[in-house]
Structures are given as structure tokens and as C-alpha cells.
């Protein structure tokens, strides 16, 4: 066991070090040949100092090339160190060992506080982050900052909407639901029509998806400020969360929704073969859907706003979204901050991200541009989904606070929702148990609970 465990730890560390081989000599001109070899991209200007970047954005190579061509004084050395948790594992290991981290790293906003609490990220305000604040969507900026500190520059967001199968709705005679009440009625109608589809999936491992649904009903699970890092407020079992979970528990019990694990092969197939009539999605969802290779060519997909609890006062929520942060291990922090702010902080770079990588920009000049609003999506029969759905959702999003042990909180959420779906607990009990386990964990970790 020990051998195996340590061997894998060693491999992770070794890979991390190997991947960032070029960080060692950034700024020094000598030995450029072998250093450049470990970058995924080609370095345009070998004389300029290099900044290492870990990122997994689709089509990122073109964005990097664009940046390197446009900048003589700094070059990006890019590595794809894996997506989401894969990358965080490597980053986490290099924080622990004190070396091997890149200068700039792509992080989802929900994990930022998990790394700031380990003193792994640089506060960017001293490098002029406040000056570019106006360039970014408010909610996204809020997600990337904690108190007065700014720990990352937002890149893309995930305002939520509802993607639905117009053909299935028409066949069952269903109007597009605008509230959750109508959504439930539509689910019943669809089931009665007997064509085998359910209205949607409620994944027990939905993590940020489930959390976003809770937030829509006013749930504020965590209170946390990196200025006072040893204090945390936990309220995962508040009224909003209970209301939402009870609602979905009802749908599950009545067999109106599926409970497949999200992002598995089964789920991906069902998403496109007509098993689910609705895909409750973030703004990156259309790109994801389109990328599933077996997409049914006869399916008619359309986008609509996320159903609301109260149609009179709609609440917009966000699922996912990522940022660029500068690590404490960065050799030249000012230069790294320049890269973090500069890669997508210009229209050319961001447009590449939007057109080639289907990103939903947080950068205001592109986000608010007419071209973006008017963009027609062939996959949705030419519908202008940004104008119709996602721009409103993005504008209404006010930001959220995540815990410094978000991964643990999500894992426990999965455990509790699964127990609920299995019929072992009711919604309220599941959330109370979640609250208790998170409080215990926080105490064990030395936090004071507000």
C-alpha cells in the first residue's frame, strides 16, 4: 500500500515537475532549446521571458499563438495539465512540495478559496487588477474576489438556461415551462404521452449544478472571507435548499425525472438520444451538447430561460465558469499577472475563445458586443441563444461564495442526495445530515463556525 501510494504520489509530482520544466529558466536566455521543447505551443520570440500556463480551454492553442504573436516582451509556455480535478490534484501536490506549479493556472471560480487558504495564489490587486475590474461582468468578478482581494481574472462563465427538445415537446403537446410548477406539469404530461422520455435528469453527482439550483431559491450555503480565513459560516440546510431538494425528490419519487450520474457515457448518450426532453444547462452546455458525437440529426434543440420559482422576480444562477490565477510559485509575479489579465483580456483573444472554443465570455467588451448578442447558432436552428437566454442570465447573476473545502462539500452533497434518491432519507434529513457533517469537518480543520 505505502509503496503503491507513494509511487503514485511520486509520479504525480514527477509529472508536475516535468510539465513545468520550462518555468525553471524563464527569464534567462540560456538553454532555450530544451526548455521550449516542454511547451505545447511554439515560442515565437525566444528572447523574451516566458510565463508557464496550465489551461484546458478548447482551442486554447490558437489563443496562445495569438498572444505570443502580439507580445514581444513576454511569451506563454502552455501545458494542458488535465481538466478540473485532474489539474487540481497536480497543483495541490506541487503546493505541498513547494515546487512544480506553473506561473499562471486556470481554476474554476468555485475552487479559488480552496487554494487561497493554502496561500497558493497571489492577490492581484497590487498588480493593477482593480484597474480592469470594469472590463468584467459583475457576478464573475465577485466570484473571483474575496473581500478586497482579487485572486483571479475571470475568463468564462456559466449562466444557466434550459435547452429543450422542441420536437418532443410538440409531440406531447407541451408548452415551454417558465416556472418550476409548469415544469412539473410538463413532466407529468410527457410521462403520460408514453414515448419513454423523461423531462430531465437529476444527477446525484450534479455538484455545482445542484448547488446552482439551490441558489436560485435563495440558498446561501457559505459565508467566507479570505481576509478572515479561520472563520466560516455554513448553512447548507437553509430554506431555499430544502425547498428545491424536496421539489426534486418529489419528481424522482413520481418517476418524472431520471437520476443518472452526470457526465458518464450513459448520461451523454441519453442526453442526445431523446431520453431526456430537457437539458438544464450552463452557457457552455450548447458546446458540450454539440460535441457529443452521436447527436441525433433529427433532434430539434431550442434554448429558453431557466424555469423560475417566482415568475415575477426571476433569479439567475451560474454553473461553472473559470478564471486565471497567478500562483505564489511564479518566478516573476508581475509578468504572470500581466499574462493572466492579458490572454483573454482583449477582444481578439476572447473572440477566438468564443468562436473556436464556445466560451461564454466574462470580458465585457465582447460580452456586451452586438456581434455576440446577434450570434446565430446553427445547432439551434439559427436561434440567437445569447440574446434570447444567456445574456439575461449573465446580467442577473450576482455572484456566490464558495467554501475553502468545496471538494469535500460536493462529495458529501453527492452522498446525501444519493441516500435521498435511494429512499433512505427525505430531502430535509439529507440536508440536515450534510450540515452536520460539514460543521464537523470545519471544526476538525480548525475553523471557527460563525
Amino acid at each position, binding site marked *: *500500500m505505502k*509503496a503503491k501510494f*507513494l509511487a503514485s504520489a511520486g509520479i504525480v509530482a514527477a509529472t508536475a515537475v516535468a510539465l513545468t520544466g520550462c518555468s525553471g529558466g524563464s527569464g534567462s536566455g540560456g538553454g532555450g532549446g530544451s526548455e521550449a521543447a516542454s511547451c505545447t505551443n511554439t515560442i515565437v520570440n525566444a528572447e523574451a521571458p516566458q510565463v508557464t500556463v496550465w489551461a484546458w480551454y478548447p482551442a486554447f492553442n490558437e489563443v496562445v499563438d495569438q498572444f505570443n504573436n502580439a507580445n514581444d516582451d513576454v511569451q506563454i509556455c502552455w501545458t494542458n495539465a488535465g481538466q478540473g480535478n485532474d489539474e487540481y490534484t497536480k497543483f495541490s501536490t506541487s503546493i*505541498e512540495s513547494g515546487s512544480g506549479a506553473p506561473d499562471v493556472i486556470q481554476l474554476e471560480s468555485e475552487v479559488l478559496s*480552496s487554494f487561497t487558504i493554502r496561500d497558493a495564489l497571489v492577490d492581484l490587486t497590487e498588480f493593477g487588477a482593480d484597474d480592469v475590474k470594469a472590463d468584467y461582468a459583475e457576478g464573475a468578478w465577485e466570484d473571483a474576489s474575496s473581500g478586497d482581494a482579487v485572486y483571479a481574472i475571470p475568463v468564462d462563465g456559466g449562466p444557466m438556461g434550459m435547452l429543450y427538445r422542441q420536437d418532443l415537446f410538440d409531440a406531447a403537446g407541451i408548452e415551454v415551462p417558465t416556472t418550476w410548477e409548469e415544469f412539473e406539469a410538463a413532466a407529468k404530461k410527457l410521462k403520460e404521452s408514453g414515448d419513454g422520455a423523461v423531462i430531465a435528469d437529476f444527477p446525484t453527482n450534479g455538484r455545482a449544478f445542484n448547488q446552482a439550483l439551490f441558489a436560485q431559491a435563495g440558498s446561501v450555503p457559505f459565508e467566507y472571507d479570505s481576509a478572515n480565513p479561520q472563520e466560516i459560516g455554513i448553512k447548507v440546510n437553509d430554506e431555499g435548499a430544502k425547498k428545491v431538494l424536496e421539489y426534486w425528490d418529489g419528481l424522482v419519487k413520481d418517476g418524472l425525472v431520471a437520476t443518472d*450520474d452526470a457526465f458518464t457515457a450513459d448520461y451523454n448518450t*441519453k442526453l442526445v438520444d431523446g431520453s431526456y426532453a430537457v437539458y438544464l444547462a450552463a452557457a457552455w452546455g450548447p458546446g458540450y451538447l454539440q460535441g457529443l458525437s452521436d447527436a441525433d440529426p433529427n433532434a430539434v434543440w431550442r434554448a429558453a430561460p431557466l424555469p423560475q420559482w417566482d415568475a415575477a422576480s426571476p433569479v439567475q444562477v451560474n454553473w461553472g465558469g473559470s478564471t486565471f490565477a497567478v500562483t505564489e510559485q511564479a518566478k516573476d509575479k508581475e509578468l504572470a499577472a500581466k499574462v493572466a489579465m492579458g490572454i483573454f483580456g482583449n477582444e481578439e483573444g476572447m473572440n477566438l475563445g468564443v468562436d473556436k472554443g464556445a466560451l461564454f465570455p466574462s470580458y465585457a467588451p465582447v460580452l456586451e458586443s452586438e456581434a455576440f448578442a446577434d450570434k446565430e447558432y446553427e445547432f439551434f436552428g439559427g436561434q440567437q441563444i445569447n440574446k434570447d437566454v444567456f445574456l439575461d442570465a449573465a446580467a442577473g447573476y450576482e455572484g456566490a461564495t464558495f467554501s475553502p473545502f468545496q471538494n469535500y462539500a460536493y462529495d458529501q452533497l453527492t452522498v446525501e442526495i*444519493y441516500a435521498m434518491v435511494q429512499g433512505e432519507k427525505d430531502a430535509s434529513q439529507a440536508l440536515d445530515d450534510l450540515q452536520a457533517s460539514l460543521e464537523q469537518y470545519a471544526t476538525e480543520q480548525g475553523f471557527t463556525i460563525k
Partner: protein
Amino acid sequence: MATTTAPTSSHRAEAPHQVKHRPDRNYRRKQRWGWLFVAPFALIFLTFLILPLVYAFRMSLFTSTLATGNRFVGGDNYIKAFSDPIFLQGLGTVAKFALIMIPAQMLVALVAALVLDNLTTWASKFSRLMIFIPYAVPVVIGALMWGFLYSPRFGPASSIFGIFGLAAPEFLAQDNIFGSLVNIVTWQWAGYYMIIIYAALRGIDPGIYEAAVLDGASDRQIALRIKVPMISSSLVMVVIFALIGTLQFFTEPQVLRGVAQGAIPTSYTPNMYAFSLAFSYSQFNYASAISFALGIVVFVFSFFFLFLTRKQSGLK
């Protein structure tokens, strides 16, 4: 396995005789050459096994929580580990696996080896290869493959059960995941153990069988009364392999977790618990302590098993 095998020092085995005599210069020179040959291995052994072990053990004596700094706590992490309900539950799970999975693997391997030992046709060679092939499939690939076979959407189960008008069982549901994992491991390892047992069977002098036949022994009597007792040391070795492997159960549940997160929590086995503590929750100190605690459990179990079977294994 590292827990049971002490580093052997074969290059010193013959030394005591020589030491009594006058130091032989020739011998000394030879010994230096010996060191040279051992050096590459020793270097790797030290850097990648001994040093990390020492480092991890040192880490396990400290604690560093998210909100407070790093401080020395001595054996506290071990006390915490052995009273941690999640760790103990994981140990319970692997103990349950050991009780079911090891006999299952042994039975399949032993029966297959005994049958193949008696066959002399071409089918024997072919079957041997077929039974062994799953072992040649990397564990991760095997688990991924079974993940698809178990899938309600892609798996063959729904069509097979459909023939009889039945609904296929949900292999990845909470109630069935235990059996599904036992099946994967048995499929993967029985062939390997079969080869070990088969090799031991081939080592038996055929003259013994002739004598037994002359005495009127039936095939079954030869198998159970002669063959099995004569290969008991190999059987003990196989059980030890299986025991250590099962207590360290990790890869298959970790891979299947990708398609059944609810049924397989992050702390399903002690090894998975240590993994998620270290890499998902950044608790490297406690993860080290859990790893060493598991190492202790593996050592104790292996030791007792070897002690109990010292007669059969020829170790007494």
C-alpha cells in the same frame, strides 16, 4: 507486498565464513564488484521506496489543517485513524471482500488448474491461455471495460435478460456493486493464480500418480489427496497474494466510481480514503497516517495467515 518482504542481502549471505579467515584481498575485490552490480537497483530502491517511506512516515507524525499551520502531534494521527469510523468502515468493506473474493478466486483457479493438468489435448493449451488472458489486460482497462458491460445502456445484460422477458439487474446500483466488483477481480486474477498452481502441479513427479493408480486411487482421490496437499505451499502463496491485494483494494472501485458515484463513496476502501484525503482534500499528513495504518493491518493479517499456515507453506 513491500510490507512482507524484507530487503534481502544475498551478497552478504556467504560472507560469515570468509570473515573468520584472514581478509582475502581477492574476495574483497569481488565484493566491490558485487556492490557495483547492486548499485543501480539499490539507488532506485532507496530513492523511490525507502526515502518516500521515511518522508511519508515523518509526515504522518505532523498535522496541518486548512485553518491552522503545521505542527508535531506524534502518534495522534494513528490514534485518530484507528478510531475513525470511515477508515474502520473501509476496513470492514475490504474484510468482507477478502471473505468472499479470495475463496472465489482460489476455487476458480484451483479447479481450472486441476482440470488442465489432467487434459493432454490441444484444448488444454488453448484454455490455459484463455483463462490467463484477463490478467494480461491492464487493471484500469479491465475495470473500464466492465463498467461498459455493466452499463444499463450499452451492456449486453438487457438484451440477454430480454430474451427471457426479464429486466436486467442494475449492476451498478448500491445493492449490487459488491458482487459486480467481486466478479471483476475474480475474472482478472483467477487466471494468474491458475498459472501458479498449474506450474506447481507440473512439478510433481508423475511416478507418484502411477503408484496411486496401482493402489486403486480414482482421479478425484488423486486430485484431492495427492495433488492438493503436495502443492499446499503454492496455495498459501496465492492466498497471501490475494489477501494483500484485497486489503489494498483500490483500482477497480476507483475506476467504477466514474460511473457509479453514489454507490461507491470516496472512502469505500481504506486505500481510496487515503487517496481522496491526500489529493481531493489536501490532508497529506492524515493520508500518510491512514496509509501506514493500512500497512500495519496488512502486515498483521499476512503475518497471522503465514503463522497459521506455517505447516502447509513449509515455513515452519
